[in-house]
């Protein structure tokens, strides 16, 4: 059916040229770049096309009115690369700018650190250097270091200032204080022709810390780019009535009171009211309920449900009061407030660390004064204590582990949403699973595939490729050869038929295929019949467990975690799954508020809960839990409130996440101890007044390198067997049809 695709929402206009960003699937090699850019540039009116291989996005500029954006997507589809319009989120653009700023600061700090170090090494090694030359070198160092520190130190100074204004302490407060005092004291020492200046230490400190920050930020940007692409791939399209015509528009362009056409097999793109038509809808992504709900005119329906049997016309509504979504959002607000009170490990360390260090410096000053040293010498020694304890290793200890751990998670197909998620994930001792779409696969599968003659199943599956019905989609997944039969025709509400080897084949309802109806006792299961040349089969389609659910659940149990199922589906549907997995504590038929209540009760007992769920009804529970995970098939609202999202059909990423987070936490602790030991050695030296700039520089870089190397050990952990889910970039971007 010819239909227009309206992509106006994604096109940006700039004096005569139009611009669109597309997320492209299947980009895997150098040849893809040339093929994609070449074929797009050949289209009439295209000014430029540039593929960014790192984030798999294609930017196209063309003369306005000479090309429709839908043609671009069609052209890419023709050469085997599905492309999806993409709108960079505001946060992503902001993060790109922030990253650029951090790298600029890093470059300035690196330049200054190198040049000041050149001058400092000359001063340290030139013992026969005259006082004038030494002063000249110190003044030069000051000339380089002061403006550089004023520029490159901004990320720390701003953050420290923000913390102080809200009367709090974070790691940036002692860092900023250390840098400013080191520079100030060095300036005074230079002006009074003294031997020691610490310009090099201050610059090196900034350089190391900026390295850590930039790496942390780069890792987060990388995962966010992949998440953005996945969102574009998943983005829903809706069929909207414009005048008398039906136009295909992105769901993001829908407004209240738009009228939509929803065909069987479509996912509802928005909340709304049915205007006409009757159908059954599958709301498992919304409520977790696997039994389908019949709807007719006037029924309220929610985004995320799948239309099963009939064609519906619906009117889009804004979230009205009294609806499920309304309740979910109200609960979310409350749950999020509780989470924002979590204090990160680094900040907790800073709260203990800063007062101790500052007290030590003050005691050093008083001690030397009492021992009869001059005021000048006492102040210099006290400041040297502050410089040497400036938490370089401490500030790198946790971010370095986080960077390596989020890289390891990324390779295990887990994409982190929240910065402090690793810490919270490592503290959990109870795992709460949702059932539908989390323990089970998001789409139904043929449950009795093994009982059916393989050849017959293959024919049924290939015939199913020609149908849009959700049950047929489950059958089609069994096809080994994904080639539909020619001349297949679908009869609405009945099934699909085609001529195979001169005999008619039918797939559909039992009566349509002339097969006796088989009664099913299981809730949520359906049958679909197939007949061809005298052979018949009845396929049972229902929710099935994820392929590795058994192993993952028992592995989680051997780690000593308590497992619980909280499902929105009926108790009869939950019981068999819980029994199969050996989970004793399983509750069904829960509303969103009851899920939260159950989690709160666990929290009150001192449990740290990891919630794994996918439905709209899980979103508040995900936000209320100590940490949360969602599969990539989850409802948007659930995904945005989960700490991390995992890809693929397997459940093992849950286990991997827990494993990596535990390992990361152990290394964070180790790193903090390393930093403490370093201080225990360096501080007495500084108190005794032996902390020359050379010793400060060596101690500082040595400890920073030590904690960074220790952090790299997160990667070294042995891999659990069978976690070989392809890395996110591979699984979503495998070449689909490279010719």
């Amino acid at each position, binding site marked *: 059916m010819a239909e227009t695709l309206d992509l106006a929402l994604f096109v940006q206009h700039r004096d005569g040229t139009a611009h669109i960003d597309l997320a492209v699937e299947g980009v895997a*090699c150098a040849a893809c770049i040339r093929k994609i850019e070449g074929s797009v540039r050949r289209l009439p009116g295209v000014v430029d096309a540039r*593929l960014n291989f790192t984030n798999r996005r294609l930017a196209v500029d063309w003369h306005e009115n000479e090309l429709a954006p839908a043609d671009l997507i069609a052209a890419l589809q023709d050469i085997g690369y599905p492309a999806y319009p993409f709108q960079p989120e505001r946060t992503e653009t902001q993060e790109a700018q922030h990253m650029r700023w951090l790298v*600029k600061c890093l470059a300035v700090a690196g330049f200054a650190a190198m*040049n000041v170090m050149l001058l400092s090494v000359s001063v340290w090694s030139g013992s026969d250097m005259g006082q004038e*030359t030494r002063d000249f070198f110190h003044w030069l160092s000051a000339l380089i270091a002061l403006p550089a520190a004023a520029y490159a130190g901004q990320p720390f100074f701003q953050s420290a200032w923000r913390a102080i204004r809200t009367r709090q302490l974070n790691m940036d407060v002692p860092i900023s204080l250390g840098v400013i005092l080191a520079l100030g004291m060095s300036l005074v020492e230079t002006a009074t022709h003294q031997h020691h200046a610490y310009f090099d230490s201050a610059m090196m400190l900034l350089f190391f810390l900026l390295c850590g920050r930039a790496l942390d930020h780069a890792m987060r940007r990388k995962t966010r780019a992949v998440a953005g692409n996945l969102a574009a791939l998943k983005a829903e399209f809706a069929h909207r009535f414009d005048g008398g015509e039906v136009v295909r528009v992105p769901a993001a362009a829908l407004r209240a009171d738009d009228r939509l056409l929803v065909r069987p097999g479509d996912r509802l793109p928005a909340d709304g009211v049915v205007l006409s038509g009757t159908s059954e809808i599958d709301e498992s992504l919304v409520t977790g309920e696997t039994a389908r709900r019949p709807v007719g005119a006037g029924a309220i329906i929610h985004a995320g449900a799948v239309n099963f049997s009939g064609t519906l016309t619906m009117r889009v509504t804004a979230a009205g009061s009294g609806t499920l979504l309304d309740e979910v959002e109200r609960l979310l607000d409350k749950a999020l407030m509780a989470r924002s009170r979590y204090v990160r490990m680094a900040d907790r360390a800073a709260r203990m660390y800063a007062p101790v260090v500052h007290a030590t410096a003050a005691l050093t000053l008083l001690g030397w004064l009492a021992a009869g040293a001059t005021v000048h010498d006492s102040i210099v020694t006290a400041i040297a204590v502050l410089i040497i304890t400036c938490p370089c290793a401490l500030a790198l200890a946790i971010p370095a582990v986080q960077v390596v751990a989020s890289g390891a998670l990324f390779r295990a197909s887990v994409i982190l949403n929240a910065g402090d998620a690793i810490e919270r994930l490592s503290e959990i001792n109870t795992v709460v699973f949702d059932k539908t779409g989390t323990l089970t696969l998001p789409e139904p599968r043929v449950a009795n595939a093994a009982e059916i003659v393989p050849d017959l199943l293959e024919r049924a599956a290939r015939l199913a490729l020609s149908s849009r019905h959700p049950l047929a989609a489950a059958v089609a997944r069994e096809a080994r050869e994904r080639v539909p039969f020619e001349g297949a025709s679908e009869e609405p509400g009945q099934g699909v038929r085609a001529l195979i080897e001169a005999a008619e084949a039918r797939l559909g309802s039992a009566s349509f295929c002339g097969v006796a109806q088989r009664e099913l006792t299981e809730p949520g299961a359906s049958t679909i019949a197939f007949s061809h040349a005298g052979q018949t089969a009845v396929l049972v389609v229902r929710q099935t467990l994820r392929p590795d659910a058994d192993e993952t659940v028992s592995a989680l149990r051997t780690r000593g975690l308590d497992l619980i199922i909280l499902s929105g589906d009926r108790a009869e549907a939950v019981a068999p799954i819980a029994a199969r997995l050996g989970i004793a504590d399983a509750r069904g038929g829960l509303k969103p508020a009851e899920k939260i209540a159950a989690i709160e009760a666990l929290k009150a007992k001192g449990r740290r809960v990891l919630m794994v769920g996918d439905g709209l009804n899980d979103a508040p529970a995900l936000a209320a839990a100590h940490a949360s995970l969602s599969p990539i098939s989850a409802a948007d609202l659930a995904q945005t409130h989960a700490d991390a999202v995992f890809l693929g059909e397997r459940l093992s990423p849950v286990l991997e996440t827990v494993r990596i987070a535990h390992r990361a936490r152990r290394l964070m602790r180790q790193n903090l101890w390393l930093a403490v030991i370093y201080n225990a050695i360096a501080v007495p030296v500084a108190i005794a007044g032996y902390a020359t700039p050379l010793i400060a520089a060596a101690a500082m870089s040595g400890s920073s390198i030590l904690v960074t190397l220790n952090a790299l050990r997160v990667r070294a952990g042995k891999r659990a067997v069978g976690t070989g889910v392809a890395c996110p970039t591979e699984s979503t971007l495998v070449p689909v049809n490279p*010719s």
Partner: protein
Amino acid sequence: MNVLIYLVPMALVLGLTGLAAFLWSLRDGQYEDMEGAALRVLSDDDLGSEDQRRSP
């Protein structure tokens, strides 16, 4: 030691040139697609006619 009067400014100017070059390349977007740059060098687009014959 008078040679320092030439050497030190020269060293600084060289360092600043490097910094300026880096900042320019950053602004130019040369770090936007690190993996793509590694692969683009493999394509023979600049060879013109030969490339036309070889392309699939």
